[in-house]
């Protein structure tokens, strides 16, 4: 019964991507969209192409290096210490905060008229904020910083999970007993193993950095914007034939993404060689500086995002609030009364969609993992790449095509199509967060139970799943957070009819009403955080008298 599941899962993941790519390639070469004359040369002739592509690649690579470097420094310098525990607690919830909400909050904090600048402004009596290009700088530095802040928790948690599989504790103890410093020893002995485990997630971060729309539109430059934002503009241009240019642009961005991935993988080899040379050289690191930098930067990044969320909260209850006041003139519930009821109604739909997409994913994932256990059905590393396929191909490249092709089969935009689209992106994350714990589950439990006469189904339902309830609920929370954050998917596949909190929030973002953004952004963040809270709380309540379940 489980045998077809891996194949079905493959289809669910790869099918939409392939369909979407076909739907992008055809218009790009002049088919499917009438009146499109040489879309490729139109895209190539766009005067901003070089710079837009440059900013996309630069900010994407920089943010990935930053997030990976920072996560590594933090783990190397502080894993197992009290500051680390504090930082982990501060960063984990940020994982669930949707990109758009985090970016909007951040934008208000760091703008020249934002919270940070208002402190000196109040003290020094400035009436006008300095005319500085902080947000939307031409190199995409603020965009990269925003991406680092958002991706750091993701990579940190991924690396933490990987640590368990490389006997980090004992390796580090050996390295230190051989005279290595904490950070240097960690980098030399543990990092290679951990990196091998988180390599694909790092590539996902890289692709997201290069191709994202929602963060770039808020924090990125505008003259020109990143290529992904420009593609989105082409997709919505009144001149209909421009859609084909968008498809061509999507393919150009795809090619650039592949080149960046290739360069990154080449860079891995170079780094590995340098690393070996470093081990041979016997040199260490300036330990104190490395530890200080790691903790300092990570704290700044966490504080910025938290301040941003606080800013959203204050704006949502603000009466008049002008520069350079640190706080509004008064507090009012007007914004909540005005936007709250509709927000709650949309929240219900959003959660329903998230639950449905996550449940479908969960069933497929558990089915695949169990099929692997029972029938040895595993395609190994290649399956893992497949899993990452939807995350490694730019959304702006294949989502428009994914909307177009079902249409050509007579399937209009609908809730079901949106659900399928969500599953495509939710499933990989559910799989990734569940497969580790699933494999780490001690198979001797199953052998003992089998010896006691339990069938494989009984082992699954009575032992494996109950014992993995914590990881399963976490996977559900991750899946729901991913679903809640899906913007382009919902917008394009729902044809605008399916509204979720993120489509509403981004629609409002273009209007710049910070009070509405505050209400919706907070609502969206809560919608993503609630499942995580439940994932932590439920096992703790269910197994409050079971010590053996607390670190599972």
């Amino acid at each position, binding site marked *: 019964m489980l045998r077809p599941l891996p194949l079905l899962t493959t289809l669910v993941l790869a099918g939409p991507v392939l369909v979407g790519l076909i739907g992008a390639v055809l218009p790009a070469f002049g088919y499917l969209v009438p009146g499109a004359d040489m879309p490729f040369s139109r895209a190539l002739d766009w005067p901003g192409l070089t710079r837009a592509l440059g900013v996309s690649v630069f900010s994407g690579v920089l943010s990935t290096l930053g997030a990976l470097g920072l996560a590594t420094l933090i783990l190397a310098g502080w894993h197992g210490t009290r500051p680390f525990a504090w930082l982990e607690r501060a960063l984990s919830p940020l994982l669930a905060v949707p990109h758009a909400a985090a970016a909007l909050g951040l934008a208000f904090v760091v703008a020249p008229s934002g919270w940070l600048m208002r402190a000196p402004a109040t003290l020094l009596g400035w009436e006008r904020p300095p005319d500085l290009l902080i947000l939307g700088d031409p190199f995409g530095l603020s965009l990269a910083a925003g991406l680092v802040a958002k991706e750091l928790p993701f990579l940190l948690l991924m690396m933490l999970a990987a640590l368990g599989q490389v006997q980090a504790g004992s390796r580090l103890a050996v390295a230190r007993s051989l005279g290595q410093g904490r950070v240097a020893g960690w980098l030399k002995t543990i990092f290679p193993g951990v990196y091998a485990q988180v390599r694909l997630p790092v590539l996902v971060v890289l692709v997201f950095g290069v191709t994202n729309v929602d963060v770039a539109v808020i924090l990125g430059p505008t003259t020109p914007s990143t290529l992904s934002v420009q593609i989105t503009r082409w997709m919505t241009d009144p001149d209909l034939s421009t859609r084909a240019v968008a498809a061509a642009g999507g393919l150009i961005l795809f090619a650039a993404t592949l080149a960046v991935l290739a360069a990154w993988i080449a860079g891995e080899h170079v780094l590995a060689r340098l690393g070996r040379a470093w081990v041979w050289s016997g040199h260490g690191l300036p330990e104190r500086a490395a530890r200080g930098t790691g903790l300092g930067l990570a704290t700044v990044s966490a504080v910025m995002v938290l301040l941003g969320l606080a800013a959203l909260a204050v704006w949502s209850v603000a009466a008049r609030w002008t520069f350079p006041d640190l706080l509004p003139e008064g507090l009012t519930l007007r914004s909540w009364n005005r936007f709250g009821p509709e927000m709650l109604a949309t929240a219900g739909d959003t959660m329903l969609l998230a639950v449905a997409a996550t449940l479908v994913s969960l069933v497929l994932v558990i089915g695949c993992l169990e099929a692997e256990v029972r029938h*040895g059905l595993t395609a190994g590393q290649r399956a893992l790449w497949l899993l990452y396929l939807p995350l490694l191909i730019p959304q702006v490249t294949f989502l428009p095509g994914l909307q177009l092709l079902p249409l050509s089969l007579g399937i209009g935009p609908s809730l079901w199509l949106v659900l399928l689209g969500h599953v495509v992106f939710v499933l990989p994350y559910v799989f990734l967060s569940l497969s580790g714990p699933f494999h780490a589950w*001690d198979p*001797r*439990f199953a*052998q*003992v*139970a*089998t*010896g*006691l*006469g*339990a*069938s*494989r189904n*009984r082992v699954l339902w*009575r*032992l494996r799943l*109950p*014992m993995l*309830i914590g990881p399963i609920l976490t996977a559900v929370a991750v899946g729901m957070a991913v679903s809640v954050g899906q913007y382009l998917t919902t917008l394009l596949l729902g044809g605008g009819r399916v509204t979720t909190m993120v489509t509403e929030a981004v629609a409002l973002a273009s209007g710049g009403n910070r009070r509405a953004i505050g209400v919706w952004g907070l609502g969206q963040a809560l919608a993503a955080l609630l499942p995580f809270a439940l994932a932590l709380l439920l096992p703790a309540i269910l*197994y409050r*008298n*079971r*010590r*053996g*379940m607390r670190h*599972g």
Partner: protein
Amino acid sequence: MDRGLRIEGLRITRGGETLLAIDAHVAPGAVLTLMGPSGSGKSTLLSVVMGDLAPAFRATGRVLLDGRDLTGLAPEARHVGILYQDPLLFPHLDVATNLAFGLPRGGTRAERRAAVEAALAEIGLDGYGPRDPATLSGGQAARVALMRTLLSKPCALLLDEPFSKLDTDRRDQIRQLVFARARAAEIPVLMVTHDAADAEAAGGEIIRLGV
């Protein structure tokens, strides 16, 4: 009828290379000890008897239990209990439910409860039923694990380095308990171990496997 565990012309190979070839018979209540260095295939032999040999290995020959050919039988249908060095009590279930997990079907709820209560009393853990297994001492957990296996009425018992994690003073006590129980229930026992003292205490035949 041929009682006990019989291993007939068993040959385990990996990639065409023979790992182990063995012929043996364990009478009910007797203990056969397999000794040998790591990699000699001791634990793989146990997997063959259990019926969950990893796909990388191949086994030819037969394993018979009380005259029944086990080849092709689902693991759960073989009635072969196993004990590891860790007690492996299911952490999400209380002690009593752990014991009840392997009880053969049948009987009323009250009868099943009574069977579990009696089993607990037998190993000196009266009233421990509602306890969290994580709160038991090593020796207590080992006794619960043994009793859990016995309650499932196994036709054979496999021991995989079963005593190596116990304190030295507890080790002998548990060892005696396991062998005495197996003898009393007339179950054939197949044990793999590193520890010569285990083999000595078992008092049965000893097969030394080379590499």
